C-alpha cells in the first residue's frame, strides 16, 4: 500500500479512506457506515490523537504538505464519528429523522 500519511501514522493507512476533504462528505461516510465500522475507525485513530495534535501543531496551515493535509482530514473525520461512538451509539443524531444540516461554506483546507 502506498504511503499517504506522515511517518509515524502508518497504523492508520488502512483507514486512509477517512482522509476526506469536506465536512459534508465526512458526514455522508459516517451515515453510510455501520456502528462496527465507525467503532473500528475510532478505536484505531483515537490512540494516535495525542501524537496527531503534536504533529499538526507544527504545521502552518498556509503551507500544509499533502500528507499533513490528509492527516488533518483523517482526524477531522474522527471528530465526525466521535458523537456516534462516544455518545449516541448510532450513526444518526437521535430523533433527527430526515432532517439535514448541510455545509454551504467551509474553509478550503
Amino acid at each position, binding site marked *: 500500500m502506498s504511503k499517504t500519511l506522515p511517518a509515524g501514522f502508518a497504523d492508520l493507512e488502512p483507514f486512509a479512506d477517512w482522509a476526506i476533504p469536506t*465536512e459534508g462528505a465526512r*458526514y455522508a461516510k459516517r451515515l453510510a457506515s455501520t456502528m462496527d465500522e465507525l467503532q473500528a475507525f475510532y478505536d484505531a485513530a*483515537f490512540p494516535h*490523537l*495525542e501524537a*496527531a*495534535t503534536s504533529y*499538526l*501543531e*507544527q*504545521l*502552518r*496551515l498556509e503551507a*500544509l504538505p499533502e500528507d*499533513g493535509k490528509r*492527516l*488533518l482530514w483523517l*482526524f*477531522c473525520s*474522527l*471528530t*465526525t464519528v*466521535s*458523537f456516534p461512538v*462516544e*455518545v*449516541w451509539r448510532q450513526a444518526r*443524531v*437521535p*430523533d*433527527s*429523522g430526515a*432532517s*439535514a*444540516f*448541510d*455545509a*454551504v*461554506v*467551509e*474553509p478550503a*483546507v
Partner: protein
Amino acid sequence: MAHFPKPAEGSWTQHYGLDTGPVSYEDSVTPSYYELERAAIFKKTWLNVGRVEQLPRVGSYFTREIAAANTSVVIVRDSNGDVRAFYNICRHRGNKLVWNDYPREETSGVCRQFSCKYHGWRYSTTGDLTFVQQESEFFDLDKADYGLVPVRVEEWAGFIFVNLDAEGTTPLVEYLGELGEGISSYPFDKMTQVHKYRAEVGSNWKLFIDAFAEFYHAPVLHAKQSVAEEASKLSQVGYEALAYKIDGPHGMVSSWGGMSPPKDLSMVKPIERVLHSGLFGPWDAPDIGIDELPPGVNPARSAAWGIDSFLFFPNFMVLIWKPNWYLTYHYWPTSYNTHIFEGTVYFVPPQNALQRLQQELAVVTFKEYALQDGNTLEATQTMLESKVLTEFPLNDQEILLRHLHTTARNYVNNYEQPQSRTPVRVSAVS
C-alpha cells in the same frame, strides 16, 4: 431557588413590562397571518444579508433570495468601493439579472458589470444601464431612465443589512438601538474563518428562534450530549440566565457556561479532553486585540459568563462566546410552516493545523445540536397545527420568546391599523 439575581419586580418579564399570561401560537400556524407578517415585517424592517468580508474588492457581489418578500437582491461593492444593493431584476423584460445554472439559487462572484443572460443589457456596479442591445430599435429609450432599482442598504459592525421599504427613513444604527450599540466595537472583523450551514426546517420561522432564544430546554433536550453525571446535575439545577435585556423589537440573553475549559475534565467527551475544544469552542481563546469586552457583552459582568445571544428582530441572531468566536443564525421564512435556517460559525483564522482541527470539533458539535433542535421543531409545528391547544404558558426564562411573538403581533397590528399604532419600542419599566 434563584442562583442569579432577578430585577426588583421579581421577574424579567414584569421588569420589561410584558404580560405574564399564556401566549397564543396561532401566529405560527395560520397562512393568512403569515401573509401579513411578510408585508408588515419582512418588507418593512432591516434584514441582515451578509458581511463585508463577502465583498472583498470592487466588483465583488452576492445575491440573496428573500422568499418572505418574494424577491431577490444583489449586493455589490461598486466601482467607488461603496456597498450597494439592487433588486435582482433586468429593466428590459424582468429577467433575473444575476444567477448561475439554477435561477432560484444564490450566487456570488466578482464582475466589472452585470450583464443580463436574456438580451444582453448591461449595468454598471453603480446600477446604471450602460448598454442596450440594438438600442436604435427601441422607441425614445433613455438609458438614464432604466437603471437598476435600488434597495436601501446600510452597514453596522461589518454586517450588511437591506431594507425593502423604500419609504422607510429609520437608519440601521438607530433601528438596532442600544443592543446593537453595545456590541458594535466587538472585533467581528478579526473572525474571518467561516463555516456556514443551511437547513430546510418544517416549522414556522418564529419557532426556531424560540428554540434558540431560551436555554430552558438545554438540560433536557440535549441531556445525552453530556456525560451521565453531568446530565443529571444539569436537570436538577435547570437553567437560569445571568441577565436579559430588551430594547425596542430586539432582545438578548446573557448566559453562564463553564465548558471552555470545563471545571472537571470528566464533564466532557473523550475527544474533547484531548483536543481541548467542544460546543463552547476551542478552550484556548485566540488574541482578538482588546483588553476589555464591549459594554454590551456580558452586561452583568459575571465571572461565570459564557455566551451572549442577541436577537435582532426579525430574523437575525448573533451569539458571542467567551473563547473569542461568534455564531450567527438567520431564519428565512418560505411559507407559514417552513423556513430556511442558516447557522454560520466565525473563528479567528487558525495558524496551524491543530487549531483548524480544534475548530472542526466545535463546528461538528454545533451540527449535532442543531440537527436535534431542528427536528424537534417539526414535532412542535405539526401539533400546533392540530389546534387542539392554541395558548401556552411561557416562563420567565422564556421572556425573549414572549417578546418576539408580541413584537411580531405589534408590527402586524400597526400594519393593519396604522391609525391606532401600538408602540413597538419596549423598554424597562423601572
